[in-house]
Each structure stands twice: as structure tokens, then as C-alpha cells.
């Protein structure tokens, strides 16, 4: 028996980060288990007739002292929208902990963590938890425009911050793979991690493979259950169709059958 739980959390804070991103801090009723970067929770969307299933979100922060788990929610559709409307004091049901975390870097390794869109949270969490000195960690955050970026300055203590924007309003103009970190010295990293839109992750994976750098990505396949029973979230891999919710969401790109 059991190391997975379904519980009602209490919303302690709902902070608007920018037009489409919200940070929810959620207090657990019972002591939280250890949860690592890449792992996720499946959140119930209440008070709407349109949503039937839960919605999965990566864990962004764990505060074991206060028993608080945080997620960053980007508004994509109706469910994520509804979740950004909760207010402090509301209860919200989570299934947790779900999925497998990123492989932690070895001592002294250099890593690049690339996040975009709804994939930012686990990258920030990873930077924080990597156990590496800040100079060994490069964070690269891509967005469409400066206004789509959120304030991540606090993370400069965990790594160097780098940005791209498609319109050039913040950081390098273009996609993440147009950034000098990719074009100039990708080989210098021991590991590249990525989470974000599929197109972005595939581009990152392509570059990493070309450079021969170990690369892990966190997939965001559609999920019904989140704990391995429905077989809806599968991803073709060298070991056959695997469930992203239990065998992932983190995969080494060499396991995937991506045409890159």
C-alpha cells in the first residue's frame, strides 16, 4: 500500500505573475512527502460544468516547513483559467505525488535548464534543487514577448538567467535554440533539461543530440488519470508505448522515438 494520496489543500496565496501566469500556494492537510523537480500533481477543477477531468501541473516549489506546495498555472484553456480564479481559503483537491523527477546532475557538472510557456515551473524548481553552485547552472527562458515573461530574478542565486523572445523585446530575439548558449557552447554542458511546448522541446533535443549532450525533457501529454491506469497519456519509446504519468513525464531523449 500506498504512497499516493488524494487530499484537499487550502489555497494560501494566488499571485498573478503576468497576464497569463499565476502562482498558487497550496497548504496540505498532512505532512507532504518529498517531491522533486519534474514530478507533478493532478488538480481537480471545481465549480464549472465544462470540466470533467483533473488537470496536471508540475510542482514549482516545496516548502516542507509550512507544508506548502506551489504550482505555476499558465492559462491555456477553460480548466487552467478556472484554476487561476481560486482565492485564498478555497479548498482544492490534489492527487500527488505523481511521475518521475529529472535525474539530478552529478557533483561539479554544468547544466542548462530550458523552460518555455507552461514548462517554466519545473525548470526553476530544478535550478533551485540541483545542488550545484550557481555558476554551474544556466537557466534559459523563452517566450513570445517581454510581456509573456515572468519575474524570475530571485533565481539568479541558483544560476545565471538568460532569455529569448520571439519579438526581441527581451533577451535574444528568436527561439531558445537561437540563443548563444545553444549556438556557441552547448557541448560545455553535462546535461540539458527542457520543459515547454513540444516544438521547443524537440528543437532543444535536436541540438542536444547534435552536440552529444545528455538531455532530458518533461512531456505534457493529455492525461485522464495521472497515475497509470487509463493508458491515455502514452508516448512511443524504445521500450514501447509508455505512460507519461508514471514512466515520465521526464524522459531522456534517447528513450523517445522523436523524429529529430
Amino acid at each position, binding site marked *: 500500500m500506498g504512497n499516493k494520496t488524494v487530499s484537499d489543500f487550502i489555497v494560501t496565496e494566488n499571485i498573478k505573475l503576468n497576464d497569463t501566469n499565476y502562482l498558487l500556494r497550496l497548504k496540505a492537510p498532512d505532512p507532504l512527502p518529498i517531491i522533486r523537480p519534474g514530478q507533478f500533481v493532478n488538480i481537480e477543477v471545481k465549480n464549472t460544468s465544462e470540466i470533467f477531468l483533473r488537470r496536471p501541473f508540475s510542482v514549482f516549489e516545496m516548502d516542507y516547513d509550512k507544508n506548502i506546495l506551489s504550482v505555476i498555472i499558465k492559462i491555456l484553456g477553460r480548466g487552467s483559467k478556472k484554476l487561476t480564479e481560486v482565492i485564498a481559503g478555497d479548498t482544492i483537491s490534489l*492527487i500527488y505525488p505523481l511521475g518521475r523527477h529529472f535525474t539530478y546532475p552529478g557533483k561539479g557538472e554544468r547544466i542548462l535548464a530550458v523552460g518555455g510557456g507552461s514548462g517554466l515551473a519545473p525548470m526553476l524548481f530544478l535550478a533551485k534543487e540541483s545542488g550545484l553552485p550557481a555558476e554551474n547552472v544556466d537557466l534559459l527562458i523563452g517566450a513570445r514577448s517581454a510581456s509573456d515573461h515572468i519575474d524570475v530574478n530571485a533565481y539568479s542565486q541558483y544560476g545565471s538567467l538568460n532569455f529569448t523572445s520571439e519579438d526581441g523585446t527581451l533577451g535574444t530575439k528568436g527561439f531558445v535554440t537561437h540563443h548563444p548558449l545553444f549556438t556557441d557552447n552547448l557541448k560545455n554542458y553535462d546535461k540539458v533539461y527542457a520543459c515547454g511546448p513540444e516544438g521547443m522541446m524537440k528543437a532543444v533535443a535536436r541540438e542536444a543530440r547534435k552536440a552529444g549532450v545528455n538531455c532530458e525533457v518533461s512531456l505534457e501529454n493529455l492525461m485522464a488519470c495521472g497515475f497509470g491506469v*487509463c493508458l491515455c497519456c*502514452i508516448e512511443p519509446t524504445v521500450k514501447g508505448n509508455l505512460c507519461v504519468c508514471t514512466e515520465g513525464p521526464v524522459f531522456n531523449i534517447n528513450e523517445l522515438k522523436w523524429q529529430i
Partner: protein
Amino acid sequence: MADLRIDIHDLQLKNPVMLASGTCGYAEEINEFFDVSELGGIFLKGLTLHNRDGNLYPRMAETPSGMLNAVGLQNKGIDYFINNIYPRIKHYNTPLIINVNGSTVEDYIELTEKVNELDKIPAIELNISCPNVKEGGMAFGITCPGAEAVTREVRRVYDKTLIVKLSPNVTDVSEIAKAVEGQGADSVSLVNTFVGMAIDAEKRKPLLSTITGGLSGPAIKPIALRMVWQVAKAVKIPVVAMGGIMNATDAVEFILAGATAVQVGTALFKNPLIPLQIIEGLNGYLDRHRMDSVKELVGSLQV
């Protein structure tokens, strides 16, 4: 504290709340949340003779009060199950029932013969109603001759409790139920999913890789309830009901309509603890209505 025990033929259940095939994996996944021994029984994920990769992604679409799936019976085949999974789960103190699938009658027979050897599997659920596979599957379940043929042949090689799972995608489900009863089925279970479809209007494409899939969840409950009611009147063997059961009230409704036991399916995705809540709620209901045993509830709808 009412007596929740009830039997489906030789199968003795500690309560009538079971898990539906394909929604609870091989029980271990649910055991992560609570001790599955508390359940009336568990219908394991559908098995076939050989490994099946299932359908392409995407396999799932959310619908009003329900969902479509197009998993396509992904599983590693019976031998893998016997060698790798069965040893890990056979100690669970609740009936584990294998959901048996084939493309041909021969498949069903061969698979059943293997299952017949498994000590800790007291029953099978013959799935002749899977809408998500190209061959076999639902094709057997939508005509009386098809349903009769599989049931008859499987009955020949299977000694334990034989439950036949019916498709709701038919004009008259009670006819099919009577047909399989006539061939020696010990029980019928219903409903499997309804064939449905979802479209991404902006992309002008189907949402499922297979275009159509199986609809489950509360949306189908009223139709499932009607079918259970019809079948329970038509046959003498026990009826196992499912289709959108989300809480104890839903379960009571199906039992009132004539079901001996119920299966909880899609509800698990919303909350895997729902089966426990149903057991508790059923107990409360029976106490409130001063019934000593759930058996008194079965088919007791006043019409």
C-alpha cells in the same frame, strides 16, 4: 452496519463495489492509494493473447460529463501477465477478475484456457464489447449469434465464474443478455462504452487518433441504468452494472434497477478514493432504510 456481502454465482464478494476493467490497471496502481482488499472485487485491465501496443496518441478527449477513450487494449499479453504481474498481485485479499479479449473465437479460447489455470483468478469477464479494436471486440457483442458463439466456446473450457460484458451499442441489449445466458454465462456485466466521437473545430480534425472512441462517465449513466433495468428483467443470472457511477447514490440506483454488484470506472480518474466512499455511503443508505443486507436492495425498485 448492514451486511454488504453478496454473490455472483460462485464468486463471493465482501461488498458489491468493484473496479471496472481498464480503469484500475492491475490493481497495484490503486493499491498505492488504499488497501484494495477493502473492495468487492477488481476487474483487471483487459488482456489479450499477445502483446498489443494499442492505438496511437491521442487516445482521450474530455466531453460534457464524460470522456472518450481509444486505448485499444494496450497490454503485454497473457504470458507477461502470468509471469510478471500475477505473482505480485495474487495475494490481494479480494477477487481479481481477468477481462478476456480476442479477435477470433480461438483467441478467446486459448486465452481462457491459460486463465483457467490461475488459482487466484476466480472469474473472467468476457469482453465482447470493446469498441476500440479493429477486429473482434465489439463485433462479437452486437449480434446474438456472435455473442452466443464466443460464450459457448469459452464456457466449454472455463470452469469458474463466467461473466460476459455486454455492449450498449445495440438495439436490444436484453436479447444479447438472454443469448449469452442461454450459452451458460454465469453473469452479465454492462455497460461497456458507447461509440462516440469528438472533433477539434479549429483544427478541423478528430480529437482521437482513431476518429471514434468509447464514451464513459456520468453522461452515459441514464442509458446504462435503463439497460441494466431491461437486462435484469430479462435474465435470471446476476447482473453487474457500470456506467458513470460516481457516488453511493448512483450505485444504489443501479442496484435498485436490478444489479447485484457495480463497477466503478471513469470515476477513479477523478478520485481513486470514490470506491471507498461508495462502500461507506451504501452502508449508510442501508442503515437509513433499515435494511439488514444489501441483498434486500437488489431489484427493489418500486414501479
